[in-house]
């Protein structure tokens, strides 16, 4: 968890995730319960990927995004689901068989009377060191004993 004592510049790493075909099928193949599962598309099927000019099926950008969100949940706890924002650019593809890791660096911290807003640089790094997804995340965490005023 980050808190008001966490030094700016501190980096955080999520676990390495291997983008196996099973994970891609579960994410992009439609619901298991649907007739004809899995749906064939460039995320799940080599032939469809080839039709789109890809050497292999490509992971949906939402998968590395999800790993970054998981890391943010680990860092900011319950607050993320109620006051977490993320802005990402999808820079390079993540293919089936690649491994990626979500990473974050605390870059800013501002406070008002009720809460602290943390800003982090976030990115998803492939096994070859290339950055697949990059951006920033912010989370507003209530100070102990303070109630958020909701409008």
């Amino acid at each position, binding site marked *: 968890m980050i808190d008001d004592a966490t030094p700016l510049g501190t980096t955080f790493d999520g676990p390495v995730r291997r983008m196996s075909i099973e994970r891609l099928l579960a*994410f992009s193949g439609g619901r298991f319960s649907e007739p004809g599962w899995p749906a064939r598309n460039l995320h799940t099927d080599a032939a469809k990927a080839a039709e789109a000019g890809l050497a292999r099926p490509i992971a949906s950008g939402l998968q590395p995004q999800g790993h970054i969100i998981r890391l943010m949940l680990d860092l900011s706890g319950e607050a993320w689901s*109620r006051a977490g924002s993320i802005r990402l650019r999808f820079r390079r593809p993540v293919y089936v068989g690649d491994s990626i890791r979500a990473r974050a660096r605390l870059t800013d911290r501002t406070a008002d009377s009720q809460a602290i807003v943390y800003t982090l640089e976030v990115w998803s790094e492939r096994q070859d060191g290339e950055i697949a997804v990059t951006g920033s995340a912010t989370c507003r965490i209530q100070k102990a004993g303070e109630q958020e005023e909701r409008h």
Partner: protein
Amino acid sequence: MTKFAHELVTGDTLDPLSFTVTPEWNQQYCYAQEDFDPRYLAGRDAGSAEVHPTLLLSMSAYTKSPSFRLAPGTGSIMGEQSCTFLSPAAVGKRLDVTFHVVATYEKRDRRFEVVESTVTDEDGTLILRRESHLTFGSNE
């Protein structure tokens, strides 16, 4: 809405989507993401399990709108996205998604559409607000 996706302009609206997440469907996303946090499985404090965030993101993509249509031989590419989580969504509750084209622009000879999606639950609670910058390419 009868336009192809690449023909949408600012002010266009795609048909809304409603769906209800089952425990099994939620667990499918937990498996896909290797994320078996108890909040997504059985819920905590006797509450409902929460919908996995990637399921919310997946179902709020405008490709999920019933009126989304790609022109033959084209594909959509997401260049940038921002989203804000405003409240957890509960498994078993109906979720409603709206899709609005809020801007278009050109960058490096590509046309982009900015689509705002919102997810609201059956009680009217705003769950997620999302903005996606999409462009289109030929598959041929």
